[in-house]
C-alpha cells in the first residue's frame, strides 16, 4: 500500500439530484457517485463489468444500484455484485463544509 491516498474535490454535491447518480473521472478511473434520498453518498465503479453498462444511469434504493442494460445489481456500500458478476470498485466519499464532494482515491 505504498500508493498515496489522495482526496479529490469533485465540486458541489448539488450537481447530483437526490436519488440519482452521476459519473466522474477520478484520476483516470470512472466513478459513479450516488446521492441517496437520506443524503448518504456512495461511490462505486461507473462501468458494469458485465457488458460495460453505465452504472451512473442505474436506479438505486437504500442498498443497491441496478445497471440499466441487463439489470445486474451491485451493493452501493461495497460494490459487491448481487447477481454473480465481478464486483465493482468502491471509494469512500463525503461532503466537506463548503458542500463539495470529496472522494478518497489512490493516484495511479
Amino acid at each position, binding site marked *: 500500500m505504498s500508493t498515496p491516498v489522495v482526496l479529490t474535490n469533485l465540486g458541489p454535491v448539488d450537481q*447530483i439530484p437526490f436519488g440519482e447518480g452521476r*459519473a466522474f473521472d477520478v484520476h483516470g478511473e470512472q466513478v459513479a457517485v450516488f446521492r441517496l434520498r437520506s443524503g448518504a453518498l456512495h461511490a462505486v465503479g461507473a462501468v458494469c463489468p458485465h457488458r460495460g453498462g*453505465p452504472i451512473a*444511469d442505474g*436506479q438505486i*434504493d437504500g442498498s443497491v444500484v441496478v445497471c440499466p442494460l441487463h439489470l445486474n445489481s451491485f451493493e452501493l456500500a461495497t460494490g459487491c455484485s448481487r447477481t454473480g458478476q465481478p464486483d465493482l470498485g468502491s471509494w469512500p466519499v463525503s461532503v466537506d463544509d463548503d458542500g463539495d464532494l470529496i472522494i478518497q482515491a489512490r493516484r495511479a
Partner: protein
Amino acid sequence: MTSTMENPTGLGDPGDTRRRLVVIGNGMAGARAVEEILLRARDQFQITMFGDEPYGNYNRIMLSHVLSGEESDKDIFLNSMEWYEENRIDLHAGIRVTKIDRHAKLVFSDDGRITPYDQLIIATGSNSFMPSMEGLRMDDGSLKPGVFAFRTIDDTRGMVEYATHEHHTRAVVIGGGLLGLEAARGLQAYGLTVDVVHAGAHLMNAQVGPQAGEILRQSVEKLGIFVHTKARTTAILGEEKVEGIWLLEKPQIPCDMVVVAAGIRPNVDLAVRSGFTVERAIVVDDQMRTVDSDDVYAVGECVQHRGEVYGLVAPLWEQAVVLADHITGADPDAAYHGSRTATKLKVAGVDVASMGLQGPERDTDEVLVFSEPKRGVFKSLVIRDEKLVGATVLGDTSKVAFLMQAFDRGLPLPEERLEMLFNLGTPTAEASVEELADDTQVCNCNGVSKAALVHAVEGGCKTVGAVMDKTRAGKGCGSCKTMVCQIVEWAAGGAVQEDPSANWYVPGIPMDKPALMLAILQQELKSVSSVFAALAPDGAEEAKSKMGLASLLKMMWADDYIDEKDAKFINDRVHANIQKDGTFSVVPQMKGGVTSVEQLRRIADVAEKHKIPMIKLTGGQRIDLLGVPKEDLPKVWADLDMPSGYAYGKSFRTVKTCVGQEFCRFGVGDSTKLGIDIESKFQGIESPAKMKLAVTGCPRNCAESLVKDVGMVAIEGGRWEIYIGGAAGAHIRKGDLLATVDSHDEVMTLIGRFMQYYRENAKWLERTYSFVPRIGLEKIRGIVVDDTEGLAAGLDARMATSIAAYKDPWKEGAEPATPGQFRTALPLEVLPQVPIRVGS
C-alpha cells in the same frame, strides 16, 4: 505467471490435513470437473491446478463469436481469477506440467516446481492438428507469420489483429468442418475475402452426408465464401510471411493469411511420457480412472472411453459428473457409459443439427429425406425398429428439439412420419421438463441451461423468483418464464415454495394491485418516495419497484402526480431508448407512419448535423436515429422540433397502418386516417407494458393488425373489427375479436375504454397477450362493449383525464428537470458506436 505465490514449495500448508488434488489442465473439462467436485464436497480437497494458458477458464466454444466480434474475449470467461481465490484453488496459469511420477505421486512443472498429490486429474484436452505442408513453419519451428491455428484465445486475438491489418485482404481456411466454417465466417466480418479448402468430398463430412454437405456448400457460397472440396494443400507460399497456398492438382490461391482448422488431436504427450496407457487417447474405465493408477483420473477430449474419443462439450460434462461423484465418494457406484452425441449449431449463419447415423446402414432401415436446396433446407432421418437412430437437419430447426429428445431417449415416434419433419399445425405434445436434456438452453436471452436451473434449486433457491434472480433466466425477453416455472417445480420435487411476492404488483411492496391502488388513493400518495415511506416494510425503497410505481401513479393521478426523476428508468428519465453501448436512440413521432417532405428533410438535416451513425426504419413505421450520446439529446430534439415518438418506456407506442382505401385497390376503410386519429389522441399514455397498435384497411392485413395489442381491420360495409391481445414478439398470438363497429368514433371509444381497463388491472409488465386470456374475453367484452358492470363511464373519464395531462417530454430538453439530467454517465471512453453499415 503464477497467480498465488505463497506456496512456492508446492508442499501445501503442513497444518492442512485435506487430501491434495492436483488438476492438470484448466480448460473446460478440468475446470468443470473441479466445479462438480466443489459442489459435492467444498472442503474435502486442497486443490492445485495447472493451466498452459495464462488465463482463468474460458468457454472455448465461444471463440468463434469472439472472432466474429459478437462477443468480447472478456465475455467468454467461465471462471475469473477471483473464482479460484474464493474457492482456495492454487492456480498456476501459464505453467506447463512436464512429467508425472505416478509411483512417487509427484507432478513436475516447467517452473521447476514439484507438486505432490494424493489424487490427480489429467484434463489436457486437445491441440489443433497441423497437417504436414511445405512452408508451414519457419526455420526455428514457429508457424510462418500469417498462419494460425484456431484453438485458443491467443490464436483468436492473433487472427483478429492480422485480419484487421489494412494490407491483408484475402484469407484461406484449411478445413471445411465446423470450426473451419466458423473461422471463415468470422474472418469475413473484417472485410476479407475467404476461401475454404477442404480435403473431404463435402463440407462437414464428420457430421453430415453428401447431400446435406452440398446444400451447406450452396448456403455458404451464398455468403460469399468460396469452397474448394477434395482439395489437399501441399504447400504454403511465401518466404517471410504467407503469400498463398498451393493445392494438389489445382491452381494456387494467393492469400495473406491461412487458418488451419483441420481437426483436433488429443493432447497426450504428457501421459505418454509418464507411462500411462494411451491408444487414440488416454484409456480410462467407467469411473474415469486411468487403467494404470487408481489415483489418477482423466477427463475430456484427452480421454478414450470404451474405444470412443469425444470432441464435444456434452460428453465432457457427463464425464465430469461421474468423476466428481466417484472421487468425492458422493456416489461410489457412479459410472460413465459413453455419450450419444448430437450437435445443434449455427455454422457460418446456417443452422445445422446432426445426430447418430448420417444415412441407412441396414436394408430394413427406414429413411426420410426432404431437400429444398434453394432455401438451404435439408432434413433426413434414419429410423430403425421404430426408434430414431440418426438425423441431419439444415436450415429449418423447428423440429430439432423433438428430434434430439427422440434420439436421446428413444421416445416413441409418431405414426405420421411427416410430423417429425414439419409442424403440421397439429398440437405437438410438449416434451415434459423431465425429458429435457440437462444442457438444453431454457433461457435463450441469457443462455441459461436446464442444469443451471436445477443447480440453483439444489443450492437452496426454493422459489421461482429466487432461481430467476440467481441464474438471470427469464430476465431477458421473458418468453421462457413458463418453462422456468415448470423446471423449478420439477427440480424442487413439490417442495417449491409459493412465492409470497407472486401476486404483488411490485417486489418492494407486499400488496396486490387493487390493495395497492386503494391504499394510494386513501392516503393520497402522489410520489414514489411517499409510497415507499407509507407502504413498504420499514419504509425501505426498492430499486426494481420504482419504475412500476411511477407508471401506476402517473396513470392514477395524471396532472397531480409528483414526478420524481429517480423513480424512473433511464429511458424515461431522458426520454430516449438506451442502447447496448450506452448511447441512445431517438425516434420522432410519425403518426400512422405518415410523413412529409418537410419532416424528412428536417430529420435528414439533424442526422447530418449531429453525425448520427445509423438511421433506421423501425418495425413500427418510424425513423430511428441511433447512436446519440446522452449529452446531445436536448440539441437533437431542439433541432428536430418534432414530438417524441415514444419508442422507449412502458406506454402507448405507435399505430402501424397500411395505405388503405385512399390508394389500395382492395382497401375498404381509411386506415391511415383512423391510425393518425388514434395516435393523436392516445400518444404517450403510460401503461403496465408497452402497447403497439395497428390499423389495416382490408382483411389482407398489410399492417398486421391481428398480432397487435390493439388492432383494427376494415371490412366491407364501412365497418371495423377490433382485435385485442395479439402479439408477434417472443410470443405469437392472434388477437381476439372484441367487437365489430360501424364508425371511427366507436373504435375510439371502445379501444380507449379497453386500454384504460388494461391500465388499471394488468400486472406490472403484463402485456395484453397475457392479460386478455387471464381476464377472459367474455368478461372484457362485457365491461368494455356492453357495460354490464357499469364501469364504462368511469373508465372513459379517467382515460380522458390522462389524455388531457399529456405533455411532450422532449420539451424538457430546453430546460433540464434536474441538474446534469443529460450528462453522460460514461465520461472517459470514446463511446463504442452502434454498428455503422455503409451502403446496402
